[in-house]
């Protein structure tokens, strides 16, 4: 049997009744547990995965490798915090390897993104270098595939 958290992660649009049946809990238990998850920030939020390319809205996403100087006592957290406060920033991850932070930002145009990197990110005093990669096409995100699946030719078979 799947656990509540796993069910929510896969599909947060399931109703409390559905979640209760599927996890073997009562509806009251589900509601109480979800409240706890939210309060404890175990569940951060609920969002739709949107393919903006299917709409008229322009959207540009870039992945930026950032090198920073860690600070005494605070390591990378302080600079990461200064970066993630910007609304344009979608995600920030601390990395192992050749650079320190992966910053994913989205904007309306290429220029908007470039400006953000040049004027805001690169100018932070602890940032020692950036490399910007624009995302050209999204194929899959959070286990969801962007392309519409082709339908197999078939007939209904009694089985």
């Amino acid at each position: 049997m799947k656990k509540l958290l796993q069910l929510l992660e896969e599909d947060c649009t399931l109703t409390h009744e559905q979640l209760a049946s599927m996890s073997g809990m009562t509806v009251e238990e589900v509601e109480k547990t979800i409240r706890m998850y939210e309060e404890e920030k175990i569940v951060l939020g609920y969002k739709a995965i949107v393919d903006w390319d299917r709409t008229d809205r322009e959207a540009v996403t870039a992945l930026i490798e950032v090198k920073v100087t860690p600070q005494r006592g605070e390591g990378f957290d302080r600079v990461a915090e200064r970066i993630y406060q910007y609304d344009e920033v979608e995600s920030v991850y601390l990395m192992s390897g050749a650079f320190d932070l992966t910053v994913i930002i989205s904007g309306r145009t290429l220029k908007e993104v470039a400006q953000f990197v040049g004027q805001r990110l690169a100018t932070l005093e602890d940032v020692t270098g950036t490399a910007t990669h624009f995302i050209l096409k999204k194929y899959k995100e959070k286990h969801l595939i962007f392309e519409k699946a082709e339908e197999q030719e078939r007939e209904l078979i009694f089985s």
Partner: protein
Amino acid sequence: MNYENILSDRIKNVQPSGIRRFFDILEEMKDAISLGIGEPDFVTPWHIRDAGIYSLEKGFTKYTSNAGMAELRREIAAYLNRRFDLQYDFASQIIVTVGGSEAIDLTLRCLVNPGDEVIVPVPSFVCYGPLANMAGATPVLVETKAENEFRLTADELRAAITPRTKVLVLPFPNNPTGGIMERKDLEEIAKVLEGTDIMVLSDEIYAELTYGQHHVSPANLPELKDRTIVVNGFSKSHAMTGWRMGYVCGPKEIIRQMLKLHQFGIMSAPTVSQYAAVEAMRNGDVDIEKMRDEYDGRRRYLVEGLRRIGLPCFEPKGAFYVFPDIRSSGLSSDEFCERFLMEEKVAVISGSAFGPGGEGFVRCCYATGMKDIAEALTRMDNFLTNLRKKQAREG
């Protein structure tokens, strides 16, 4: 030419499935929800598909040995041992078949003589009777009961046995009821069969979809092992219906004879499918559990939903079907399904399609997404509410 005079009596006596007309209506309906099709809604896991593709890239396109690739039979033997504690020798006790269906056909044709009787518990999938007929045998249908959770009881079996009985089909976990046979049930069956020459054809195609407990095969019981032919396959456990991969296991004296029929009728199962099946056996256990967990959640939701709207149904422990009792609607199963489809555009299958004993029930398959199941329940509620109102008005 008068083909009526030319065709064999056996094939003319096989009744076409009545469900075709219903499916024709369903296929024409654009926005219908189907809880009708008995097939996983998952696509075959990618690593298994990839193994099939890789075999094609390598140019492995020739026949395999008649019984199937030794590598695959070894993997099947290891899988059966690992998952079900069943021990079969890959070299002499396993044949890879074109789906479980071929395995059922092989078994019946190799075991029965004209006039022999084949006991078929019903409701069950529709192939056993016609295949027994084509083999020259007479199917003897035994109705299992909702109050027994659609298990076959020792008394029901005893009453059906005659001196002509050759084969007992055990279709568990059961399509359409979701019923299973536990070890204690099989022990009772074993007592009845003791001292007879009756063989057991155990169709275990849904074995991996057993919820909350482990599947028990009749071949797990020492007293039944020698008289049991196990039929299984990849369609339901690994979402591989279109690959047509099944297998049959049993005593080597019988498997050896079956191989003759398979060799002349089929040659060997499709090679690309066999390569994919090797990968499924080797690295597919995690897929099985993932899909089973998913089905289990839907199963619970559908059962609770049906009960909430007033349709009694026992909790199915296997397969991916719920079999609610619709007698309170005052409609026959056929009427219920037809009107539900026409009025609410939801397809469920009439229990009567699965033989006597299915009347008064409908089969709802939950191998479909949660949103469709939820919507189907809402429409079922509507349908029943309207029906009851109408019946009240008409007195």
